[in-house]
């Protein structure tokens, strides 16, 4: 039997009615992404790295006090206590009450006064291998500022032959929201795919799929109609998330809105396509939930380049590329922040298109109107 537009329309109509008849689900699918974006953006757009540290001051000189003052001056480093033994130091670090302990040895002030080098020691809680080096970097640059302030006292400034001049492009005010909000959209926009996967499993679970088997409906018609219905409803949440980003968070939108909407639709199609490809296995809603959670949701936080950038090598690249969220992070950030056109987004767009088409093709090819 051939693909019939008439049956397709009827199925589409049925699926829309299904979605709109259940207001709680509709609300969850349409409103939740916008709401979640509000919430997540507030959490992830952290502006400063705060660190708590304890001090072990064996010197007790004015220089030591000035050094600590310099460290804590801008409020990002907070001195939370003093220690005077190895055991105390160890207990604080083990309990996670401080990020590092700063040890100022005896002779610190005298050395500085005499213009000699003087060591200090910083013992960090190294468990978080991304955070600890960052904090130690801040400590180093604050210390360098203190050193040069002390060294230049009473000396005529000789000038340095070289300096670094930094220009921050695309986000000169360095607002965390600017990059974070578009980067979070793939996470919140995985809700339509979830609802879609659940709907497929639900029809099997509740037995209404049996009714469909008895009709002349084709697999392609059935799957495409359902996919189209959920993509259309998902576009509402795309728009809502865009409104939240632009009007609530005031994230600059440099690119073309039409391009953004088109590629967002492609992202929805890719996520939904992947769900349809595995749908024969998804017999229960519970299973569908797990699969969606693991394919779209958790990787969107950890593998997509949202926080930690993706490396361009071998397995690292591949373990990011197989998730649709990775590509939409690139697209959303590119269009929002840099105002990119399609010419510079060819790779992510092509991969998403491939995922959507391959997903649907696999689904149509393996679809069986059968009960097992």
């Amino acid at each position, binding site marked *: 039997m051939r693909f019939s537009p008439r049956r397709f329309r009827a199925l589409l109509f049925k699926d829309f009615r299904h979605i709109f008849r259940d207001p709680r689900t509709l609300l969850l699918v349409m409103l939740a992404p916008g709401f979640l974006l509000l919430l997540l953006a507030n959490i992830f757009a952290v502006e*400063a790295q705060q660190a708590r540290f304890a001090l072990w001051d064996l010197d007790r000189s004015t220089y030591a006090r000035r*050094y600590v003052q310099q460290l804590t001056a801008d409020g990002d480093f907070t001195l939370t206590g003093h220690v005077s033994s190895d055991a105390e130091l160890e207990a604080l670090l083990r309990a996670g009450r401080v990020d590092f302990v700063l040890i100022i040895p005896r002779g610190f002030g005298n050395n500085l006064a005499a213009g000699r080098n003087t060591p200090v020691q910083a013992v960090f809680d*190294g468990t978080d291998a991304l955070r600890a080096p960052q904090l130690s970097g801040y400590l*180093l640059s604050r210390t360098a500022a203190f050193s040069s302030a002390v060294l230049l006292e009473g000396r005529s400034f000789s000038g*340095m032959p070289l300096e670094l001049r*930094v220009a921050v492009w695309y986000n000169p005010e360095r607002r965390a929201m600017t*990059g974070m909000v578009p980067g979070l959209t793939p996470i919140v926009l995985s809700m339509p795919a979830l609802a879609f996967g659940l709907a497929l499993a*639900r029809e099997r679970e509740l037995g209404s799929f049996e009714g469909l088997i008895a009709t002349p409906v084709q697999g392609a018609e059935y799957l495409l109609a359902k996919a189209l219905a959920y993509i259309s409803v998902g576009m509402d949440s795309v728009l809502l998330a865009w409104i939240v980003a632009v009007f609530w968070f005031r994230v600059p939108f440099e690119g073309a809105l039409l391009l953004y909407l088109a590629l967002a639709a492609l992202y929805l199609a890719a996520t939904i396509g992947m769900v349809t490809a595995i749908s024969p296995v998804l017999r229960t809603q519970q299973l569908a*939930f797990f699969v969606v959670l693991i394919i779209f949701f958790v990787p969107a936080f950890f593998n997509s380049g949202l926080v930690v950038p993706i490396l361009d090598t071998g397995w690292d690249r591949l373990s990011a590329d197989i998730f649709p969220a990775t590509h939409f992070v690139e697209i959303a950030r590119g269009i929002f922040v840099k105002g990119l056109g399609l010419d510079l987004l060819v790779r992510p767009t092509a991969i998403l298109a491939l995922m959507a088409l391959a997903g649907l093709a696999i689904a149509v090819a393996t679809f069986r109107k059968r009960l097992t």
Partner: protein
Amino acid sequence: MNLATIWAIANKDLRQFLRDRTMVLFLILLPVMQLLLLVQATGRGALNVPIAVLDLDRSSDSRALIALLDASDSLNVTCFPETLEAGVRALEAGEVMGLFIIPQGLAANLANPIETMSVQFIIDGTSSLLTRIVEGAGQQVIQRFLMRRGGQPMGGVQVATLMRYNPSVQTRPYTIGAQLGFITYQVTLGVAALGLAREQELGTMEQLMVTPVRRSELLLGKVISPTLVGLFDFLLLSVVIVYIFDVPVRGSYPFLLACSVVFIAVEVIWGTMLSSLAGTQQQAILLVFIQAMVDIALSGYLVPVTDLPPVMGLIAQAVPLHHYLIIVRSVLLKGAGPVDLWPHLVGLVGIGLLISVVAMRAIARRLD
């Protein structure tokens, strides 16, 4: 309350669950697969941000500067554009996160300083976190370069940094430790959230109601089987991370296990409540999904709780996952025990009790 009745219900749920072979397979395979992928993606060593260098000087000095850039812990020079336009294009396309421009005359000015020369560093500001890292690394490279050339006045404070618990600063143990908590969390909540909703949707709830089973017995019975499933996944994953990924267990494993039982039970009770509030499984799942996003965001893994805005930081204290992740990581990696972790133990158990009472009441009302 009758223990036999409770066990009968738990047993029924467990059997029903084990009968679904695909589900059981997925519950064993998916978490392990997820762990592998996440470790692959986030478990690499140091952060290496790709940058481009436009060398307009082409001297031995500029080459020395480039070598220092490449040797920096967080930078990786991946591309040498011939022109400024090519460099900007690489930045725009996202191939590199920064463009480092070494001006013409660098070597001449270093040999015979007449002016302060600027090295331009254009940074892609999309992620403000990376911007800070890249900028800091750039500054350090310049300082190191000057120091090496002897152009910098000597003297001053020199920091010796020690990384306790993780001297070679590897991300792997931390990531894996956190993922153990996350995956246990997600399996537990997922299994629990569907229990009651499924019975309601398929109509078997009504059958349960007409049996002589009491509400409290039904509830306890319903909590037991997801707890066992969660515990099984925890045990499985902890074996995988210890024997395959060589994550150390520096603290007491029984203590960690006890905390895990408490955590899993709390999540199961909470999930069961969400499940009872929802009319259908679809609604239950969407509710759990939202809950999971909030929990993961506030768990302190991707964003440290101390960095959160005050209100959010306060809310994070009420998230059991936040306390649990700290406990898991501290026990595994730091060898911490109850004495070190008491605030988080109080948090986990206290919030857990509170959640349980609220949830039990909500469920009881719903069942009537």
